[in-house]
């Protein structure tokens, strides 16, 4: 899905009239086309078809028949509105936090550490290092570290940030923390790739032209790093909106933090309500596509991408 978003972000105008449809080109494309047809188009069509099914008249649990039941979408929207809003709220917050944390880190590694390539590579490895351990394990580890009888929670109790009957795990903050933590490398890496190529001579030129350090950042550094920011925010926002692990009761969430993903999982695996789960998935995909398109259009960085 992320790649589809990138595809729409950089329209290739001349691809239509310059097409050379030789047999070799076709042969080279075939494996990719077959792969997409089998593993992308087929499930997608299946998903849309399932989302329109109606319950079997016999009332058997998990039995549905092919139909054109648009009502599934209305049901999903009306009954899962809090989860939908929460999903995008969490995704928005976690993306912002990830950006706020990643930007200085990426700037430091990509710009400040240029003169020390060894240290630069080491720092970059540290950013990716958490990936070597399954994110499920790491999230469970955080659950332990932030559990109700942990030092962290005692500290929150002692300082009065949390009341004596309130705990961290299961709160919105815990889920947003987990989402930020788990997806932050997807923000840092595109930012780093962009800032690594930042021409510092342009920053010198700006300060030579009476721009204070703050102005140099807002007028030159930030606009030039927009492509990195766009890629990073898309790569974090999209998967976060569909995440169901962090918000789940087994990890950092509670029944009050359920997201769209949580509901899809519940409908599919526990309630066997396949049309509802499918409708929710299609809806999530649609909303993300609309948001991403509007975002890329508005940021107006087409010529920098």
């Amino acid at each position, binding site marked *: 899905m992320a790649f589809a978003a990138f595809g729409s972000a950089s329209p290739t105008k001349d691809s239509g009239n310059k097409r050379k449809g030789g047999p070799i080109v076709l042969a080279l494309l075939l494996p990719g086309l077959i792969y997409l047809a089998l593993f992308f188009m087929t499930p997608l069509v299946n998903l849309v078809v399932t989302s329109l099914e109606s319950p079997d008249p016999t009332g058997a649990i998990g039995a549905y028949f092919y139909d054109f039941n648009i009502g599934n979408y209305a049901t999903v929207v009306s009954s899962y509105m809090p989860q939908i809003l929460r999903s995008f709220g969490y995704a928005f917050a976690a993306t912002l936090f990830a950006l706020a944390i990643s930007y200085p880190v990426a700037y430091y590694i990509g710009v400040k550490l240029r003169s020390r390539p060894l240290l630069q590579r080491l720092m970059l490895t540290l950013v990716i290092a958490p990936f070597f351990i399954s994110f499920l394990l790491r999230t469970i580890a955080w659950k332990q570290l932030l559990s109700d009888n942990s030092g962290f929670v005692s500290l929150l109790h002692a300082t009065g940030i949390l009341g004596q009957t309130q705990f961290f795990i299961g709160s919105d903050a815990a889920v947003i923390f987990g989402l930020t933590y788990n997806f932050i490398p997807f923000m840092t890496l595109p930012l780093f790739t962009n800032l690594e190529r930042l021409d510092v001579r342009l920053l010198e030129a700006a300060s030579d032209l009476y721009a204070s*350090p703050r102005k140099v950042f807002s007028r030159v550094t930030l606009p030039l790093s927009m492509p990195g920011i766009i890629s990073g925010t898309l790569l974090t926002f999209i998967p976060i909106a569909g995440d169901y692990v962090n918000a789940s009761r087994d990890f950092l969430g509670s029944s009050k933090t359920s997201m769209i993903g949580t509901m899809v999982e519940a409908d599919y695996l526990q309630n066997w309500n396949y049309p509802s789960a499918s409708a929710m998935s299609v809806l999530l995909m649609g909303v993300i596509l609309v948001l991403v398109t509007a975002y890329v259009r508005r940021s107006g960085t087409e010529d920098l991408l």
Partner: protein
Amino acid sequence: MAAQANVSGADLELIDVRKDFPGFTALDDMDLHIPAGQFFALLGPSGCGKTTTLRIVAGLETPTQGQVLLGGKDITASKPHERPVNTVFQSYALFPHMSVLDNIAFGLRQRKIADYEKLAKDALNLVELGHLGDRRPQQLSGGQQQRVALARALVNRPSLLLLDEPLGALDLKLRRQMQIELKAIQLEVGLTFLHVTHDQEEAMDMADIVAVMNKGRIEQMGAPEVLYDRPKTAFVSKFLGQSNLFIGEVTSSNPSSVSIEVGGNKITVDKKRAEKHTGRIAIGVRPEKADFHETKPKLGADHVVIGPGEIIDIRFTGVSNQYLIEIPGVGEVIVFAQNIGKSPEIELGAKVWVSFKVEHAYGLADLPDGTEEN
């Protein structure tokens, strides 16, 4: 532009400026004074410290010690954006995310000058690119980008304009054209220009004063014609144009002249044109000031005659012929003869004597690198 034409530059002074980088000294206790309104060139090979000097003046580099004064005011501790100094960078450093006009207006807008749009357009017209204001810098040619960079700096009317080899990336023809334009603009706006370059022709052609730098120091400073006529060190005599250098022990000296002996030849220099009057010294003469003769010429004491030697190479360069003459005990001597239709008909291997006027010779303060003192 004309409305502000009475704005003039400020004088720049570097006092005892030193810059150490880990492992080497880029600038070694440099003193420099550039009077207001002058076109000043810092000339030297790469790594001589000229760009470091420029960056220190711009505030992009902090000197290890010393002071930078602009118009009498100490700006050593000022940040780059606080200095009334603008730079035309070697790479041009135009902002790729802005139009040409926005690039030029950048400095004006940072200083919140209300009239920025008109001033930027005027500056763009000054460099004759008025029709390209909406383009992105990437869409312009190298020469056009260079002019935009110049306009972007000039539009701010800085007290001092720094030029960091801005013509280096241009081809020869365009470079000559830009040199003329740049000089014309400097005369028109009357700013102080500090131009850093490794191109000696460019420096001599454009600058009022040239300072030749070597290894973090200024070797010699002066008007281009003075530097060319009387280089004081071996480095300057070799870096600015070509030189024939003769090295020998001083054998005779009188109140007006000093003579050395090289391979049985007596070479004399005016005392007031010699930096050193005793011991082992180097005397130089420019190739175009030397002549050669097929018979030993009978010339008075106001001439130096050396030879005989053998012509080992002849080069035709258009305006002049260049002859390389090997003289036993002296070494190779270059002689330029102007191509004015009466150049001597001479062939390789011919036996010739070289002569030049004593008043054209100059005595150096040091010996060329690789010549051991003994």
